[in-house]
């Protein structure tokens, strides 16, 4: 396209190329502003990170699961983590908790899911329109077996022995399983053979602590809205 007079045309020509370059710059700037603006206000990823940390905080204490792994359920999580069930049901959030044995990597129990379960699928896909997800994998000790009969010969490190005086954490077991060290509140209570310990301290209960990996996946698709 030539819009100037013939003399000017020889030196200065506003061609289609000029318009294409200008249009390209304009579009580039506008797209940049839109992308930057939308990412600036998009807090879904931050929100799911906060929820992830919050759930982890209410489930664990000093590397131990606060609840019995088999009986833990949705209502306990909603209650203990102080979550609003109504908002969870409004399909803007998702929390998924899975439990795996650290040594075998097998599922210890069925996953617990709160909110919209379809979010767990979207989390695997990378798309701006899908919910934003954050996942934590935490190595913890969980109270899996809680038995009244003390099988002292099967005692492992981090297990808990209970008698009338309280709970004792097994700190270490010698390689030949002949010496067991038992601590209470970080103080060495006894160091003896399992049989001696059983008789002397009168353990009545044995809690086997299982090493497990708990994955907490939190997803948010909460974008808010103008009223």
């Amino acid at each position, binding site marked *: 396209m030539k819009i*100037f*007079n013939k003399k000017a045309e020889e030196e200065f020509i506003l061609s289609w190329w000029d318009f294409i370059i200008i249009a390209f710059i304009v579009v580039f700037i506008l797209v940049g502003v839109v992308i930057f603006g939308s990412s600036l206000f998009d807090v879904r990823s*931050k929100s799911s990170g*906060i929820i992830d940390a919050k759930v982890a905080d209410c489930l664990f204490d000093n590397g131990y699961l606060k609840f019995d792994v088999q009986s833990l359920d949705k209502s306990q999580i909603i209650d203990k983590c102080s979550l609003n069930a*109504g908002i*969870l049901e409004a399909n803007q959030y998702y929390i998924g908790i899975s439990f795996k044995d650290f040594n075998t990597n097998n599922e210890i129990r069925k996953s617990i899911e709160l909110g919209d379960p379809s979010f767990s699928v979207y989390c695997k896909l990378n798309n701006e329109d899908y919910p934003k997800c954050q996942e934590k994998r935490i190595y913890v000790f969980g109270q899996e077996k809680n038995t009244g009969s003390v099988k002292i010969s099967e005692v492992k490190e981090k297990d808990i022995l209970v008698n009338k005086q309280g709970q004792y954490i097994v700190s270490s077991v010698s390689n030949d399983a002949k010496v067991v060290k038992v601590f209470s509140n970080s103080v060495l209570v006894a160091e003896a053979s399992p049989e001696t310990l059983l008789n002397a301290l009168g353990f009545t209960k044995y809690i086997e602590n299982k090493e497990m990996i708990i994955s907490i996946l939190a997803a948010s698709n909460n974008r808010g809205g103008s009223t």
Partner: protein
Amino acid sequence: MKMLNKKGISLIMAEIAYIILLIIIFLPLFYKVGIAGSSDSDYEQMYAKKISLIIEEARPNTHIELNINELLNRADKNKYTGDIVSIDKNSVLVKVSEKGGYGFSYLSNANIGKIENRENGLLILDIKT
């Protein structure tokens, strides 16, 4: 001093026309870029999300003071005297004018006490269990 000939004048005119054309295209564009993210609705959205995330992350028995001078100035400019920040049914609503407002929900079930201290430009939140 040598005067420009007709061809020279024509070339200068062409250059000026080209520059004017660029200004016509880019001035509104730069204005749009300059004001991006600073309209009333942008501020409502920004503060609604900010306050919701603060509530979401807060532990029980937390006292929070948030500077909301920018919102107060905008509300004054729009002659809006109502509640700037409302918290109801797990949702934060921020308004700086009679029309509009932006709402953002949060998942936490905490009870929240809210005071808008307009003199000091502070929003005071007490997060309870």
